[in-house]
């Protein structure tokens, strides 16, 4: 469902933008013909398997691979002795990365259960796994840190005691204290905030480890091409970062590495990590053979990346009239054994929620600490998910405390178009942020439409009489669109002789639909259809640079690069047409696959095919082609209001989400259906995180539920009635008014459901997930 606030200009203004053409990669995907990494099987392919640490914290004293090497079919065994000792970060971020350099291809120390100890390449996967079992390791088991609250205690075991650990940006990094990142900001006067408040609430909230659960596990294939260059077929969000990081890790010049992103079976941040490419490539370099490294599902759970768990202490002050006088947000984030995204995720926990509420006095303080547990990383929502939960619940608590309807409370407090927040300038990604004011916001409309759709007025406060109670709750949200002055995207467009175009982008469609959306943007400019583009993404040899699919940047940033490239190509087309028609460029227009003089009956026109043929074969021969690249000066936030209706069974503690409404302002949606799809996917993932997704560990730090039997993700039968409302706005800096949409909606379910449960049964759920066990316990405590 799409609604436009101001009888739009927007909806009718565009020909291709705002429609929902079939995905350009759709026919290949829906027929099973699309090529994912596992579908590539070069001759002589070897299969890799990884020996993983059974200990949370251990030094490798001795490692003997001779029995493994002697096994017939084994072609290579790599231990820490066999790989270059170059330190790097696995975080697929821009160089210089804001994450600490604390990782090796293989290290002599294991820092969590599941850490890499050795790797094998063999003729079959079965032999590789058998060989892994034959490697003898003598460990010096070290005391582990399994609780983030104890990580910085005096005398705590030091997890990164290697001398090489360092940062490449001036950020607060204290490995000797297990501190992987720290950020703090104070704006205004907090004491004044508490003094002037009528209600001051303080509380602790927490969010657990969670797995992305892309259905395609992490996979890489590496080989040497005929020229001896290393070619990596990757399931990745970040092909260009992968090229750079692999080259650095393995002492290769960037020119000797080519990364090709094939179809990628989901990422959600989990593949914004250069985690397996360097290991697979090292096996190829050792054997000279193609090698595939394909994680088992268990490895995805234990040894890929996760959502960083956070312990959040939040204090807010509110006046009786609803004004927010102060917010004090303190976060202890567990980054696990390595500091991937350790600083930036927690920075986003501040920067993607604090500007949402008008407030003059803000304190934000965050520590990101190492533990001997699985490693955090980028995960859709990127820190905002965790903090939106705490803030979203406490604002509901505040509304309750001052006796105001949360709907009204949010309506009066949210940031508006033209307003700014000091947080924008104060908090960036490892550096200071960028000042910006809100260029577009449909949040007021989101709240209004969402409340109507959920039936807020008629359902709020009506619990029902039986043992199963009903309630509704809401939350407001924001995210960003790209990282200003850091992200960069390029695009190339080329005209072919039948009037079709090649669109080449480094941006990575990982299921997000960006190939289609970017083609739509170019089609809008060039007067053709989406299907007139042959889209290629991404290949470090053939497509221009792009930071990749993260930070909600592709539509906004790559979209602008595509739009600019398309305009350049349009200029070239008009010039050739001008020559062919002998008319000035200013009198011509490009539409419907042809260039015509403006005005009715103004004379003959030339088709794109004729123009292409003319420029390729006839006169002043040249390839009509243009590239463009863009950075951004802003990160315009998309906004959303989410509403949940729940049933709580007071006998068992089980929560059922009955209905969920996500009203989202993503600017002008480029592809309406795909924008809805991003929202729906994010919401359902968020519902899983709210109700049952979490890691369970043994007392020694071993992950116990590393499969889909005991780590459940929602199935079709867990889907509530789900309504998406896209509120169209016009972001002045975005391509055709677009902002981002992919991340924001994962932030809603935890707070919206928690608030709905409060409406239903009067308990506050501050620790996710809201298992029936926790609900029942809270109900009991309430009864006393």
């Amino acid at each position, binding site marked *: 469902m799409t609604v436009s606030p101001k009888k739009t200009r927007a909806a009718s203004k565009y020909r291709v933008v705002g429609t929902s053409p079939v995905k350009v990669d759709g026919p290949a995907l*829906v*027929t099973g013909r699309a090529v994912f990494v*596992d579908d590539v099987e070069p001759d002589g392919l070897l299969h890799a398997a990884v020996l993983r640490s059974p200990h949370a914290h251990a030094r490798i004293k001795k490692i003997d691979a001779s029995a493994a090497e002697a096994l017939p079919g084994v072609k290579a065994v790599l231990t820490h002795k066999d790989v270059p000792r170059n330190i790097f970060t696995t975080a697929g971020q821009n160089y210089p990365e804001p994450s600490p350099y604390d990782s090796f291809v293989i290290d002599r120390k294991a820092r969590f259960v599941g850490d890499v100890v050795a790797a094998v390449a063999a003729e079959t996967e079965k032999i590789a796994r058998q060989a892994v079992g034959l490697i003898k390791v003598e460990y010096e088991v070290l005391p582990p840190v399994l609780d983030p609250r104890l990580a910085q205690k005096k005398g705590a075991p030091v997890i990164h005691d290697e001398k090489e650990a360092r940062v490449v940006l001036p950020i607060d990094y204290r490995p000797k204290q297990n501190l992987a990142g720290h950020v703090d900001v104070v704006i205004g006067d907090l004491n004044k905030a508490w003094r002037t408040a009528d209600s001051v609430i303080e509380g602790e909230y927490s969010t657990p480890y969670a797995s992305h659960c892309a*259905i395609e596990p992490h996979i890489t294939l590496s080989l040497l091409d005929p020229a001896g260059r290393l070619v990596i077929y990757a399931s990745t969000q970040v092909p260009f970062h992968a090229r750079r990081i692999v080259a650095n890790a393995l002492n290769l010049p960037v020119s000797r590495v080519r990364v090709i992103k094939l*179809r990628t*079976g989901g990422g959600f941040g989990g593949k914004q990590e250069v985690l397996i490419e360097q290991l697979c490539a090292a096996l190829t370099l050792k054997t000279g053979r193609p090698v595939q490294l394909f994680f088992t599902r268990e490895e995805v759970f234990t040894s890929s990346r996760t959502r960083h768990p956070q312990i959040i202490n939040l204090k807010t002050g509110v006046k009786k009239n609803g004004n927010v006088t102060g917010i004090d947000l303190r976060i202890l984030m567990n980054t696990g054994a390595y500091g991937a995204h350790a600083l930036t995720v927690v920075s986003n926990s501040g920067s993607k929620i604090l500007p949402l509420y008008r407030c003059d006095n803000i304190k934000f303080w965050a520590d990101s600490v190492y533990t001997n547990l699985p490693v955090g990383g980028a995960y859709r929502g990127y820190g905002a998910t965790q903090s939106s939960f705490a803030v979203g619940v406490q604002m509901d608590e505040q509304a309750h405390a001052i006796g105001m309807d949360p709907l009204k409370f949010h309506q009066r407090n949210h940031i508006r178009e033209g307003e700014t927040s000091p947080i924008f300038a104060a908090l960036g990604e490892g550096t200071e942020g960028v000042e910006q004011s809100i260029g577009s916001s449909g949040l007021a409309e989101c709240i209004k439409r969402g409340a109507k759709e959920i039936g807020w007025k008629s359902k709020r406060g009506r619990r029902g009489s039986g043992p199963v109670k009903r309630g509704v709750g809401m939350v407001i949200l924001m995210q960003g669109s790209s990282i200003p002055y850091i992200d960069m995207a390029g695009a190339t467009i080329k005209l072919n002789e039948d009037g079709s175009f090649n669109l080449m982008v480094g941006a990575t469609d990982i299921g997000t639909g960006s190939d289609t959306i970017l083609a739509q943007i170019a089609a809008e400019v060039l007067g053709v259809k989406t299907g007139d583009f042959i889209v290629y993404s991404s290949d470090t040899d053939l497509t221009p640079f792009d930071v990749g699919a993260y930070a909600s940047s592709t539509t906004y940033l790559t979209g602008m690069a595509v739009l600019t490239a398309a305009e350049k190509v349009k200029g070239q087309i008009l010039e050739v047409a001008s020559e062919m028609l002998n008319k000035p460029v200013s009198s011509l227009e490009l539409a419907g696959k042809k260039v015509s003089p403006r005005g009715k009956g103004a004379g003959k026109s030339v088709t794109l095919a004729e123009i292409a043929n003319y420029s390729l074969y006839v006169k002043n021969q040249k390839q009509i082609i243009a590239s463009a690249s863009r950075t951004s000066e802003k990160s315009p936030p998309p906004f959303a209001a989410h509403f949940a209706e729940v049933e709580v069974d007071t006998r068992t503690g089980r929560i059922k989400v009955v209905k969920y409404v996500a009203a989202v302002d993503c600017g002008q949606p480029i592809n309406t259906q795909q924008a809805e799809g991003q929202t729906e996917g994010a919401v359902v993932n968020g519902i899983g995180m709210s109700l049952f997704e979490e890691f369970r560990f043994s007392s020694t730090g071993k992950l116990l539920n590393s*499969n889909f039997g005991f780590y459940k993700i929602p199935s079709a039968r867990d889907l509530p009635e789900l309504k*998406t409302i896209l509120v169209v706005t016009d972001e002045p800096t975005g391509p055709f008014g677009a902002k981002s949409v992919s991340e924001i909606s994962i932030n809603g379910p935890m707070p919206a459901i928690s608030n709905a449960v409060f409406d239903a049964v009067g308990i506050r759920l501050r620790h996710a997930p809201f298992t029936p066990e926790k609900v029942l316990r809270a109900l009991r405590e309430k009864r006393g």
Partner: protein
Amino acid sequence: MNKTISIEINGKSSSFSVAPDEMLLDLLRRSGYRGAKVGCREGFCGACTVLLDGRPVNSCLIFAARADGRKITTIEGLGDPNNLHPIQDAFLKAGAVQCGYCIPGAVLSTKALLDRVPDPDEAVIKRALDGNLCRCTGYKKQIEAVKLAARKLKGKKK
């Protein structure tokens, strides 16, 4: 010891030499039916779903030897990119495809459903898709796709 078996895949009978521990999923993939995907190898995710005698099954749980003499439908047996099966067309039109890794399985589960129940209600559709995990779409558009496919197929029969 390897054994020679015969399977009718997508209407065509072929013989295969299979090892006793080979899974149907691996046999299919090495024989070019790569639309069946590896997602968990434990029977939970449904990415490897194929139809065995018309019923969706996890091909990662079935030893290849069991398929001897039986009929298998893989995604390659439905449409191709230039000639989509109505269910595939419906999945695209409804926007039910994002990364696409789960889609061959979901499309085959839909086929099995609509072959038996031409006009399923939403609860029946959800149940038919409950073994095909999808992390991208949130299922809503997949459910809409099944409804659309049911309408398309009904129209075709008339």
